[in-house]
């Protein structure tokens, strides 16, 4: 709770919400607008010192109609973790969602991790230096890890659906 308490002192209470997700790590949900400010505070502040961005993963929250992006921060000197969730509204199939601020300026590891989320979920990151697809081909249609994703039938003339081959 130490982290959340000092966040309450620093920021408005409406900017973030504590999430209970049965894990042993504190988890907060942050609004898109305040996200960058909070990240910078968590990184720069001497008592927070979250210097290691471990992992960014996108999540498709089916019922809520949102996509979540989960940032796992780690502080090497204090040995503690923090999960930060940012949510964006779902859009039509194969369409990009609203943008989230890129944090690759502060954590350079975010560069490729954000590209991966963009590739798999179609969530653009504002201010990213080089936002391209990373694992899928550049001309791939759709965002594969969305739950409503359906495989396209052909790619460069190659039939993908192997059942129709017979």
């Amino acid at each position: 709770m130490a982290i959340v308490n000092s966040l309450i002192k620093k920021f408005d209470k409406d900017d973030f919400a504590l999430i209970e997700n049965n894990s042993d790590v504190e988890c907060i949900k942050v609004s898109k607008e305040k996200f960058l400010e909070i990240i910078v505070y968590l990184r720069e502040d001497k008592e927070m010192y979250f210097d290691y961005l471990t992992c960014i993963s996108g999540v498709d929250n089916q019922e809520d109609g949102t996509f979540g992006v989960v940032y796992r921060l780690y502080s090497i000197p204090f040995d503690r973790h923090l999960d930060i969730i940012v949510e964006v509204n779902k859009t039509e199939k194969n369409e990009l969602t609203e943008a989230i601020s890129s944090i690759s300026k502060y954590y350079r590891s975010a560069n490729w991790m954000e590209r991966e989320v963009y590739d798999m979920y179609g969530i653009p990151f504002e201010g990213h230096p080089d936002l391209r697809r990373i694992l899928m081909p550049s001309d791939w249609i759709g965002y594969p890890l969305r739950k409503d994703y359906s495989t396209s039938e052909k790619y460069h003339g190659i039939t993908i659906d192997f059942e129709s081959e017979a």
Partner: protein
Amino acid sequence: MNNTKNHIGKKPKIQYQFDDSHLNKSEPSRYDPSLLKREEMLINIGPQHPSTHGVLRLETLLNGEYIVDVVPHIGYLHRCFEKHAESLPYNQIIPYVDRMDYVSAMNSEHAYAMAVEKMLGISSQIPKRVEYIRVLVAELNRIASHFVAIGTYAVDIGAVSPLLWMMRDREHILRMLEWICGARMLYNYIWVGGLYYDLPIGFEEKCIEFINYLKPKLSEVDRLLIENKIFVERTANVGILNRDLAINYAASGPVLRGSGLRFDLRKVDAYSVYPELEFDVPIGKGEMGTTGDCWDRTWVRAQECKESLKIVEQCLNRLQNDYKRSKDFDPREFCPKKIRPKEQEIYFRAENPRGELGFYIKSDGKSDIPLRCKARSACFVNLSILPEISRGSLLADLIAIVGSIDIVLGEVDR
């Protein structure tokens, strides 16, 4: 060709017809050759080139012999691990986890099994013998994995004999692991809640024999390769990654330790039975050049082999004395028949030979399949450092730098 029929009387289908635009559309280059300055040159390395350790394409912008920028293009070995994992029960994901990092599958399995056990809350129930066997096989696999890393790195640099030596000794490890579970590289041995089988009878004795054989071989490697003058000249002061940059790039494993930070998850998170085992964490000190250069990273790997050997020895000692083989020991006793964790999100990380392998798993509490299973791969993150540390160095050094990061493209692309 179109009109001829094949032997079953069907017209053969043309599966794919090459078109020049396909390549450009699917993976376009970052730099436009027509916009380059006069002295600049664009060179494409890979995706099929032995020194890229798999299918990695490096688009290299050169100024004479010097590197201006490197753009790695990855994804050629993307096998949709995360998408597959969203349609499979937890225990059936393990073979897919094997295929991510196929050089050290045991370590990946161990991490995944521990992650799911943590979700189920059965971590404390796992018998000690099971845990010791897990650590034993994982450390054996770590040695084998480092042998591949060091051996292929030597070939990148231009020395062929170390590879043959390392492969010879690695083969012994693979044979032993094959004896345990029947597969050389993709084991499916560590299950959620237990193991596939107990160790075969006589394994401990053979393993001790192997350790006694391997110990002098490791110091041979030091003399043959690591301290070799040619090797040192080729790798010292090349591809320097300082500590702050390494942390900022979230580097892990030997890449981070080579930069001089004593950070090993086996010590930091103290998972499994590692707190009961004694071993050191070697870090790069810049003995031959600057801290964080290619030589430091390789030296750390060579030292870790020795530390792993210590762990293997201790595990065998415990398995022969404290947690002996007995008739009523069933390694599958605590394997749950049905894996249905409660609604939660967890992130579990473990130290792989290449760095931090993490699993972010989200379950909804209603089904046997995960809602989301993300693998945070160490190679993927470590590879993103490549442009930063290779700028300004020679083209020949780029190969040395790529090799020193020790990537497995199966894990980069997943």
